[in-house]
């Protein structure tokens, strides 16, 4: 009897010791799946009247009047010129006879939802804008500015061919990919600039509210409509343009377009919008 008790006691102690020896999952360990779930739940709880896909319409889904404006705008969308230009540019061969399509899977058609991706060979996040310029350089062409019309036109066309396809950003089983995701998340929530704003200050805490004359877009689905025609800019804007302009608006010196921080931020923001349809190119007030 005593022997049996002693054996039970030792066994229980061994089980406990084995459990204690397992590495504890720290609260700070990145968990992208849980993050995305919590992120989407936060917004769907905040705006219960919206369907998940509505979030891809940014401020136009937040306000009835604006939604009507959007419906009317879509009759003659202001991004149409960029779309046409982009289509033409995409089909025009480089001097060496190759085309953009030759640089991408499926000839570049219907692939926007897979960008950005983590390149395990290089150990970094590759955005569509970066991939397009690399394609140009690999074919002996000069890279385009990341914030100007040519890049916006090209990405507009590529987004258009992916319309309706859900964001499908993957985080491979590579600690560097997880680190890039985590850095993007950190950037998103970090306050900066003299106004002491983070991306989340506007797009998590205040979506649907006005900042001066603008209605703030929710962070969920915020990149699905990129690139966008902004009435405020009287022109098209790429993701790079959006990020750098946000930084200067809060009185922070923007980083260079496609710097690591911005690519990681795009990776994070796209990942947490997984499942929401690509709606680009879009239009915004």
């Amino acid at each position: 009897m005593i022997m049996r008790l002693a054996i039970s006691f030792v066994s229980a102690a061994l089980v406990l010791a084995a459990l204690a020896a397992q590495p504890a999952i720290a609260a700070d360990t990145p968990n992208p799946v849980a993050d995305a779930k919590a992120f989407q739940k936060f917004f769907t709880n905040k705006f219960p009247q919206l369907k998940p896909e509505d979030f891809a319409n940014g401020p136009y889904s937040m306000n009835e009047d604006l939604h009507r404006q959007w419906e009317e705008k879509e009759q003659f969308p202001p991004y149409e010129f960029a779309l046409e230009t982009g289509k033409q540019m995409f089909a025009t061969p480089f001097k060496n006879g190759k085309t953009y399509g030759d640089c991408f899977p499926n000839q570049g058609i219907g692939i926007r939802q897979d960008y950005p991706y983590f390149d395990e060979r290089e150990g970094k996040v590759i955005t569509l804008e970066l991939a397009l310029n690399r394609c140009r350089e690999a074919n002996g062409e000069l890279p385009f500015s990341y914030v100007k019309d040519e890049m916006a036109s090209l990405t507009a066309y590529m987004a258009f061919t992916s319309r309706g396809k859900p964001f499908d950003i993957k985080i491979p089983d590579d600690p560097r990919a997880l680190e890039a995701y985590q850095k993007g998340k950190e950037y998103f929530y970090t306050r900066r600039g003299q106004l002491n704003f983070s991306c989340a200050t506007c797009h998590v805490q205040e979506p649907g509210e006005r900042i001066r004359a603008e209605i703030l877009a929710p962070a969920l689905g915020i990149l699905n409509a990129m690139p966008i025609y902004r009435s405020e800019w009287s022109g098209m804007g790429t993701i790079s343009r959006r990020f750098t302009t946000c930084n200067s608006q809060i009185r922070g010196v923007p980083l260079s377009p496609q710097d690591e921080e911005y690519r990681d931020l795009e990776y994070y923001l796209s990942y947490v919008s997984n499942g929401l349809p690509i709606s680009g190119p879009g239009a915004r007030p």
Partner: protein
Amino acid sequence: MKHSVRNLIAAGLIAGATPACAASEADFKTAYAAAEAAEKEAGALRNQWTTTEAALTAAKKAAEAGQFDQAVASSKEAEALAKASIFQATSEKQRWKDLEIR
């Protein structure tokens, strides 16, 4: 007695109207170097502010025009702004988590 009071008031007015000690080019150079060093540190933290850059530009412009009082004042403003941006970047290394959706 009446004279001495009047003289004292006059002296006081003169002293008030004249800067205690006008800034020199050397003062500007010292103040500007301190501001520039702080802004460089903010740059290393990837967190410079546009207002710091504007104050540095204003300081340089004032110095070029020989207005060293203004140049020193703008340099000091730039240094204070740069130090605030350093504080922000440092404290945000932990504080960003307070905003995170969980």
